[in-house]
């Protein structure tokens, strides 16, 4: 059966086309683009909440989008056990909805950060299962609020239940920094307890074609397809 997926577009989303292209190129299945005002989503295997500045980051990143018409449908989709992936602003929206723990606050140096970063998997789940335990992925980040923060209790919960999908790490060459944005425990991506919802700050959809300089972003979709 072919893999079906969808990308939600909010006003101000700017990685929606990138996510659509990523899914089309890698899943060989049908890919839908859904406007945030819709109130139903056809049955799909994966929904991506893309990066960008939904509603211009008014109030807080992701806060306005978390109240969109489409959100109850997204919650329903995730409750059925299907996959939900929030990238960058999508991750921020997932924490605002409350589907994922913690919050993404301003980067430690208070500046936007756009560059390649290095991540590795910490706890295994369906999204990262093809990644080897010591494998380092090179994937770009582009965010102003990517500094993951949560309370001690939540952090313990994430660790104890194996919910930390990705952490930032050093690259294989000199001059690479581990804690690029101030995230607690270098966290770059987390899942929910059922591990069918992943939020991550790095952009795998910008690292999968040969001209991208790294194809490491491919492995997430490959893992999901297996």
């Amino acid at each position: 059966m072919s893999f079906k997926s969808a990308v939600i577009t909010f006003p101000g989303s700017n990685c929606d086309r990138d996510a659509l292209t990523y899914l089309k190129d890698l899943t060989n299945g049908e890919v839908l683009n859904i406007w945030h005002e819709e109130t139903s989503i056809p049955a799909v295997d994966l929904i991506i909440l893309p990066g960008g500045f939904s509603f211009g980051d008014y109030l807080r990143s992701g806060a306005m989008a978390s109240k969109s018409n489409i959100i109850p449908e997204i919650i329903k989709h995730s409750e059925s056990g299907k996959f939900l992936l929030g990238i960058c602003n999508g991750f921020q929206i997932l924490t605002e909805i409350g589907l994922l723990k913690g919050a993404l606050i301003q980067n430690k140096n208070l500046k936007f950060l756009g560059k390649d970063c290095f991540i590795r998997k910490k706890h295994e789940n369906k999204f990262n299962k093809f990644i080897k335990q010591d494998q380092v992925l090179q994937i770009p980040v582009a965010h102003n609020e990517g500094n993951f923060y949560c309370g001690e209790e939540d952090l313990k919960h994430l660790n104890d239940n194996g919910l930390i999908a990705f952490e930032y790490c050093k690259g294989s060459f000199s001059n690479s920094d581990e804690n690029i944005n101030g995230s607690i425990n270098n966290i770059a991506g987390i899942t929910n307890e059922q591990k069918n919802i992943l939020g991550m700050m790095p952009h795998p959809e910008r690292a999968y074609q040969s001209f991208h300089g790294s194809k490491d972003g491919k492995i997430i979709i490959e893992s999901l397809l297996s």
Partner: protein
Amino acid sequence: MNDELILQHGLTLNEFQIIKDYLKRDLTMEELGIFSAMWNEHCCYKTSKKWLKKLPTNNDVVIQGPGENAGIIDLEDNDGVAFKIESHNHPSYIEPFNGSATGVGGILRDIFTMGARPIATLDSIRFGEINTDKTKYLLNGVVHGIGHYGNCIGIPNIGGESEFDSTYDFNNLVNAMAIGHVKKDAIFYSKPKTIGGLIVYIGSKTGKDGIHGASMASDVFSENDEDDKRPSVQVGDPFMEKLLMEGCLELMSSGLIESMQDMGAAGITSSSVEMASKGNVGVLIDLDKIPLRQPLSPYEILLSESQERMLAVIEKDNDTKVREILKKWQIDYEVIGEITDSKNVVFTSKNKQVVNLPVNIIVDDAPEYDREFYLPRKRNKKDFDCTHLNLEKMINNLLDNLNYLDKSWIYNQYDSTVMGDTVKEPGQSTGIIKLHDSQKVIGATTDCNPLYIRINPELGMIYTVVEAYRNLISSNIKPIAITNNLNFASPLDPNIMGEIVLSINGLKKSASKLNTPIVSGNVSLYNQTNDLPINPTPVIGMVGSNLNINKIISNKFQNDGDIIVSIGESLGYLNSPYFLKDQKITKEINTFNELEDIDLENEILTANSIMYLADNKMIQSCNDVFRGGIFMSLIKMIEKDYGFTVDLPNKFDLFCEYRAGYIITVKEDELSKVCNYLSKNNVSHSNIGLVSNETIKINSKVFDYFEIKGKYLDNFEKIIN
């Protein structure tokens, strides 16, 4: 009207008299405002027009030259590329964050107004000496503003340049360039087609911001001016621009729009006047219909430069459909007038005409000046003693100088990879972006060498064009066309006027020879505070392409052990102005030697050879040699933990500027083939060393690899903090 009022509006008394003689009546305040906005340098090029007319603007790949919102070139099949550069110098000095942000917003609107989807931006920014808090504040604010706007709207920044020099202490420069992809059969122009067509207003509400922005931008600053002028800086909202862009592109692709014009400098005044002028028609606009943020007088509405606004013409029947699409994007939309056959621009308010002017007097009769200019003096040949300079000293002089250091502190604040089509990010000699759903790539660069131009405006300009040309060639991008942003001080000074005239002449000569016509541009004059002029800074943005992404070559070392070949000939240190200045030998402009003549034939021949070698996969990487010489070129090629071992008979040649200078790296077993090819084509070259891991070794002297690399990568941030 009293003289003071006229002068306050930036018009000369003579210009005012011309208008009165033509109209044979007094002007309304609103009409005076219109002339103030339309007859300043920013809008009508009154000082530069005579010279700009001489530029080559056309060849068989130019679809649209200067005169529209952006120039467009043909990239075969149905692909066109629209691009333009524009300055936001004065606003960015007064309010760096908003001034630079709205510069990006404005140039993006110029692109999507033509039906093109913006796919990349570049920025050329210049500041004074970094040792003052003021410069640090400006740098932080400008970079933050550029980043904020571009990141939010989601257009990748793929390159640019920055320079620090004391002549910009009180006049920083912010030039923003944007590139868009357009289908050739879906280009939109500002010319309306139908008499009776509805003029519609799309976008943000109009407020008080930016009133008289364009005339401010054509004025000389005096000290303590900043606080007074701050209210005329516009405030940008990239989220609104994103909605506006998507809304407009959807309207255009639905075939609901006849023509479009963005409300940039001088807002609704210039956009409606341009529209009428292009179509040789009249416009009738009811100012009471304009969506307002706050109560405004007709005068203020006419001159407001509120951002994120568009003017479009639609057929009457399409009103409902247009309204629906814009409602989805939550954008204000209002029918405000219609196209008439009167050839007059008429604005009404409260059922009264407040403006009724023939279009041709505003546009065609705009003043054009032939200002007096002086030619630079002949230079005496001078010798300089450089014997005290050893390798360490020369290296440190470069790595302690902001202008040579890695600028990732700047470009890491920009999103360079959004849209997923970025091939080369900032920090390399060419920014490269792929056309979506295609194998074609576009390369772009911005350049200017103000010191060269100060020494010899004509030749210096040719060097600037050649540097941009080499930047593109070093990635195997074929240069196609140019956009220019001519930043100068006051043209009322005949010396400055001489710089303007001669550098335009240099641009003409080089662009003609290299077959890279000028398709769009912008002029920014009066960049001086009191008597302190900026260095002449005619920035160019050069755009080129390669139709096959697989033929691109890297600007970074690829393999340990590859042979490093230097191409071109050293100008020698006596003829390398940046060498003399940056090695602290001299800085007085009068003391520099005359620039060496530049052989454009030789540049073309060398470029063609490099493109041939790249097409045939005979070189591993390439970089051009310019300011900072071979040494800086090699440092910039460092990637991962690769370094270099090189030997040059004359140590100064490592740091001098070059004729047709490039570095290429070649696999050892291909070296003889490459050298034979270069010799056969009379391209001067020499094997100077090899790529070597974790090593920097020059003329047998070993340097600490990690120390040098660390300085190059980290010193910028250390110096500015």
